């Protein structure tokens, strides 16, 4: 479970993300199940216009979005920082095929992380994206989510600029395991 010291109510930022994706006519939403994205995934699965597509591994989602674009639809890939490393070779499709790529990444391995196994990939997530030609934007608090999502979706879909939004662990809340 996730907990935040300064807020015990259900977060609204996933609703803001959903609204932005809806406005940009996003239709295919591949995801690997993830606690930070759980509310957004619920919204997607309940939506009549978006299709949530559960993956077995994140790189499937990169290839899926290439196919979606060829068929005339936009998509967004939802994943966690640990999944970014799984995508590296498949990210090469993005500059080659020049399709709109937007991914929303919930971060682990930072801001109060308790699990050292999450730290190596969480620490290199931004660098992996940048080396792969994907621009990185970050949202660290709920108030900035709408503006960051708007900017990311606009440059991804309108300017074909591959973009990752890192949703920081400070925003999501550090994972706590209670005994």
């Amino acid at each position: 479970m996730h907990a935040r010291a300064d807020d015990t109510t259900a977060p609204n930022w996933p609703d803001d993300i959903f609204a932005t994706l809806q406005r940009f006519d996003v239709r295919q939403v591949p995801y690997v199940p993830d606690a930070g994205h759980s509310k957004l995934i619920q919204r997607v699965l309940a939506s009549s216009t978006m299709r949530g597509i559960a993956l077995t591994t994140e790189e499937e989602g990169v290839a899926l979005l290439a196919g979606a674009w060829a068929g005339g639809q936009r998509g967004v890939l939802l994943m966690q920082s640990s999944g970014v490393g799984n995508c590296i070779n498949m990210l090469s499709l993005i500059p080659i095929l020049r399709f709109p790529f937007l991914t929303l990444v919930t971060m682990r391995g930072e801001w109060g992380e308790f699990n050292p196994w999450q730290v190596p990939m969480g620490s290199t997530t931004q660098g992996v994206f940048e080396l792969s030609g994907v621009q990185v934007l970050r949202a660290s608090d709920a108030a900035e989510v709408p503006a960051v999502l708007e900017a990311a979706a606009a440059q991804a879909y309108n300017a074909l600029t591959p973009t990752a939004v890192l949703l920081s662990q400070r925003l999501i809340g550090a994972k706590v395991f209670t005994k």
Partner: protein
Amino acid sequence: MSKANLLDRRQVVSTLLANRKDVVAIGGLGASTNDMCAAGDHVRNFYLWGGMGGAAMIGLGLALAQPGLPVLVITGDGEMLMGMGSLATIGLQKPSNLSIVVLDNEAYGETGGQTSHTSAAADLVGVARACGIGDSRAVTTMAEVEAFAKAIHDVSAGPRFANVKIDSASLERILPSRDGTYIVNRIRGDLGFQPI
């Protein structure tokens, strides 16, 4: 190397595409993409020169975006093994217009013919069926290839999967365009989508 009773890959692919009508076809990284080009370049051919393991998922994304169009993935056993999880994803989504053909020569032909997992242990038909793709066939005759080529056009009865045992002959390479942006925009244009 090649066994007498195995099918000729080029004959298989040209049979699959002979009466293609509105089919969008995706070739996997390796010889299957060359086979598609050898059957005749086509505005709706999606050739992969990289992104190994991604062919079936590109097919799924396209099939979901264009549910009225038959979408055909033609790939090799090595490429399919790398993206085997995508069979589980496709089994879950059940796109009724998606067909997948694996040209199975039990070897990595592009890299010197090293044996693949299908030569000894892995049964891709069993995997596809166990992942929820009910119409999963093992194909060993041209009559079965012809039947599958007809079935592809029924966009309400898929997804379907065929594993075709082909001989391991190394054929002359027929190389399609390797400009990915051109390839994908050519398909989009034919489907009626304007450039951004």
